[in-house]
Every structure is written in C-alpha cells, then in structure tokens.
C-alpha cells in the first residue's frame, strides 16, 4: 500500500507531470502517423456508411436474397494478414541492431503473407461474383468497394514492403543508424492489418449478429 502510494505520489509530483511526452520522434514518424490518422478516418467514414445504409435499409440484410457472407475464406485471410505484422516487427528490431539478414528475411516473410492474402481475396471475389456484383444493389456496392479499397491499401503496403526489400537487398540503404523508412512502412503495414479486423467485423460478422 505504501509502495503504491509512493508510485502515485511520484507520478503526480511536479516533475512527473511536467515530463515532456511525446518527445524525440523523427519528422518522418509524425508524418506517417498523421497520414495513417487521416486514412483511418477515411475507413471510419466508409464503415460508418455501411452501418448507416444498412440500418436505413430495413430488416433484411443482405437484401434481395443474397446469402450471408461465408466465413471460411475471410477467417483464413485474417489468419494470414494479422500475424504478418510480426515479421515486420522482428525485421525492424533486427535492423536497429544492424542485422541486415533479419531485415531481409522478415520483409520477405511479410511479403509472402501479404501476397497470399491478395490471392485469397481474388478467390473470395471469384466465388462472390457468381452471386452478386457491385451493381446488383447497395449491399453489393458496399461489399466490393470496402473490401476492394482495403485490398488497394494492402497492395500499397506490399509495394512499400517490396520497395524496402529491394533497397535492403541492394545494400547500403539501412542499418542501425538508418532505419526510419523501415519504421514508417511498418506503421503503415500495422494499420492495414488493423483495418482488416474492423472490416472483418463489419462486412463478414455483423450481418450475422
């Protein structure tokens, strides 16, 4: 109890309260964080539109006899995409210690996982397109535009990862003193992952609730 009291006193003392936080972030980090913030708002608007249109639409959702989305492929996609953040983290920690091989291996692993995600998305679309398309009704529009827009973001993220990998294979690009770009691309990739979870919930799980 006294110990905890001491912690609270320390954290609410004038020195702690005047601690500078956030501090020492590079400009590129701030730039990427702000970019991700505006992109996240974009997805929030899209997903908000989904719920708005859904609840204005009436009780039957998906409408017009479209089946509720099947879960198998999307869950596999989640299983591929979400863990793909781990190799990036591992790679980033590696290059901070100057271990170039970790950077290369980690990026390559993420690249493979991201590409598998895209391949699964194509399989998923091929199946869905036999039932409904973007022009069938508003459900179809929402479904394809939201997942497609996310797919576009995964592609951009993959381009970043591929670009990093190419630069690191050339050599002379990254090391323990120079890894800002790795950090920034990693932030973007984590963002793309996180958004997918929100999309999984909105597009695939929420119609079943």
């Amino acid at each position, binding site marked *: 109890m006294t110990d905890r009291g001491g912690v609270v006193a320390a954290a*609410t003392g004038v020195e702690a309260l005047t601690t500078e936080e956030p501090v020492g972030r590079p400009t590129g980090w701030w730039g990427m964080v702000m970019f991700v913030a505006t992109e996240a708002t974009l997805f929030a608007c899209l997903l908000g539109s989904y719920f708005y249109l859904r609840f204005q639409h009436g009780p039957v959702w998906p409408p017009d006899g479209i089946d509720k989305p099947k879960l198998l492929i999307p869950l596999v996609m989640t299983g591929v995409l979400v863990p793909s953040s781990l190799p990036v983290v591992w790679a980033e920690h590696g290059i901070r210690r100057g271990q170039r091989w970790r950077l290369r291996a980690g990026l390559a692993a993420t690249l493979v996982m991201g590409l598998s995600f895209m391949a699964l998305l194509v399989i998923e679309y091929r199946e869905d397109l036999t039932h409904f398309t973007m022009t069938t009704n508003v459900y179809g529009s929402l479904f394809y535009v939201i997942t497609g827009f996310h797919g576009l973001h995964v592609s951009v993220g993959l381009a970043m990862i591929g670009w990093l990998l190419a630069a690191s294979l050339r050599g002379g690009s990254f090391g323990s003193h120079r890894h800002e770009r790795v950090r920034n691309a990693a932030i973007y990739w984590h963002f793309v992952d996180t958004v997918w979870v929100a999309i999984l919930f909105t597009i695939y799980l929420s119609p079943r609730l």
Partner: protein
Amino acid sequence: MTARPGPHARLTGGLLLWYGVLGGAAAWAVHLIAAWSLDELACAAKSERIAGVPLWQALSVAVFVPGVATVGSLLVATLVLRRTGQARAAGAHDRALERSRMLAVVGVWANLLFLTIIALGGVAVLVFPPCQG
C-alpha cells in the same frame, strides 16, 4: 517528492497531463457517438429498449460515464495547476513548468466546456421522450 521519479512515473505523469488537457474532449466524443447511435438505432428499430434495458437508462449511461471521465480530467488539470503553482512559488523557473501550466489552464477551461455540453445532453435525456420526432 524528495526522490526523483523513475522513468515509469515520468511517463505516467506525462500522459496524465494529456489526460487532464484532452480527457474531456475524448469523453465528449464518446458521449456524442454513443448517445446518438443508441437513440437512432433503437428508434429506427421502433423500440424503446436496448437489449432489454430501457433506452433512457442506456442513454443515461452514455451521459454519466463520459461525465465522470470529464470530471476526472478536470481534477487532473487542477492538480497540475496546483503543483506547478507550488513549484513556481518555491522559485522554480523552467520552460517545462510554464508549458505544463499553460496546458493545464487550457485543460481546466476545456473540461468545464465539455462538461457543460455533456450535462446539457443529460438534461435532454431527462426532458425529451427518446423517440419523439
């Protein structure tokens, strides 16, 4: 106050300051989105209950919890104001002190503002029947 705070305490203190500055704003955002969507969704479904709970009670939670969070934020901001005031009186003069003090002033007023908005929302919950157009 004699021992220098460790890095953990410093981090907590630094974040606490931001809670004191922006806590009310965040609480208000949560309040607005929660109260609005609860009301809209329930009324659109032609029901005055949410998962068995009467709508007005659910709405009261969406007012009360953010309200408490804002009061907490207000208290933190006043605490910073007092601590920096004492340090100043003791003759301390550094930029971090003045900067935190300025942020605390902003925090106190901002929290009062957001508390007022949330409280007005609470009054509305008591006054209006939830689904009247």
